[in-house]
């Protein structure tokens, strides 16, 4: 019998007023799978990512995380969000807390871990993303790449079932993009379940098991990266790839 998929979306629809941002989205992500979502701006890929931990509510359809439907706002939802790690484009580290405090806040307050345990685990994670020496610094004292790596450590500290990345490198310059992608590739190789919204085609090619191409709020094509990049089935994907790979 197959394992329960970690994330399942069924016939998900969402409107922003008149704008139909997600149309009948069906997607299922298995444990250990890395799915990269690509597509032009406004195609709904970030919204898709934000709906999975209900930062955005959906208008119809179902989303299952770890086999259970997303509950309404409240304690239940908070518990579920603890299982879903989220990394934002703009890092969103807590500005008034040190890097270490950023990483331990969730485990201590949401999971009820003893402070010493959370601290030790946090230091391990910071070491793993290569910024252990910055543990007592404030976010504003770090480079963008370091901040994003701290944000990844913060999300990992919750021991999530799935990690969501919402354009994690779009606010970074090329050198910093590399240091963040290196961490992400490592996570992918270790079997972390990941849903990554990104314009980094290199990452999609090397780390993804599947590439999801979205346009106009719909999933247009789902394919393994080698097939998606060499012979995309849809006209729209061919057009998109020719534009972004032209340079």
């Amino acid at each position, binding site marked *: 019998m197959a394992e329960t998929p970690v994330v399942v979306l069924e016939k998900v629809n969402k409107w922003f007023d008149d704008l139909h941002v997600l149309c009948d989205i069906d997607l299922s992500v298995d444990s250990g799978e890395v799915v990269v979502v690509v597509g032009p701006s406004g195609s709904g890929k970030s919204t898709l990512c934000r709906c999975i931990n209900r*930062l955005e509510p959906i208008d119809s359809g179902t989303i299952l995380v770890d086999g259970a439907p997303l509950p309404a706002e409240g304690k239940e939802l908070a518990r579920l969000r603890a*299982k879903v790690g989220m990394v934002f484009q703009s890092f969103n580290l807590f500005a008034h807390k040190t890097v270490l405090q950023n990483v331990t806040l969730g485990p201590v*307050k949401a999971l009820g871990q003893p402070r010493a345990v959370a601290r030790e685990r946090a230091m391990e994670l910071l070491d793993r993303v290569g910024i252990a020496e910055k543990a007592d610094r404030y976010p504003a004292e770090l480079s963008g790449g370091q901040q994003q790596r701290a944000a990844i450590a913060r999300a990992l500290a919750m021991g999530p079932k799935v990690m969501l990345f919402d354009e994690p490198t779009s606010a970074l310059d090329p050198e910093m993009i590399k240091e963040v992608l290196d961490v992400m590739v490592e996570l992918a190789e270790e079997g972390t379940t990941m849903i990554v919204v990104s314009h980094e085609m290199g990452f999609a090619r090397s780390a993804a098991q599947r590439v999801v191409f979205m346009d106009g709020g719909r999933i247009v094509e789902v394919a393994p990266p080698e097939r998606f990049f060499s012979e995309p089935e849809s006209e729209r994907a061919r057009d998109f790839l020719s534009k972004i790979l032209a340079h």
Partner: protein
Amino acid sequence: MVASFRVGPIAPLRAAATTYVELVRNCPLAVLFVFFFFGLPKVMGVYPAYTTAVIVLALYTGTYVTETIRSGINSVAGGQAEAARSLGLTFPQLLAYVVLPQALRTVVAPLGNLFIALTKNSSIAFTISVGELTGTAQRVGNATNNYHAAFLAAAIGYLLLTIPSGLLFGAIERRVAVKR
């Protein structure tokens, strides 16, 4: 706390907080003093004038503090709250550990203003014959017929209270400044 209700997800609390703020801050302080001093005994028994003055000043200043803190909450970037929610923090936790600590830092200066205004607003308690500074100056002026000296002394009295308050809030502001 009232500010938290104003931004919170619970509609009745939000409505109650808004009603309180809009009713109390839109009435002149002198009217509130007289209203509470003569009106309250009818429903709740007689309070001494001094107690009434303290209650009214607290209610009145509370509305301004509420709105100041609310604007501080709104000034905290939305991403901070989103990050807290995605870590699985509940709304009260999100306020207590992430949003309020940052919001309070940005509103130290306006809170200092309010504290000074509160000190000076106590002068209006003299409408209900509380023996505060302005009223005392009035009485001393009456008795000695030297209003200039009496009110000069009162002015110095206020300055002795308010200038150190201003300095204190300036010091707090420097102390808690967030690195950005």
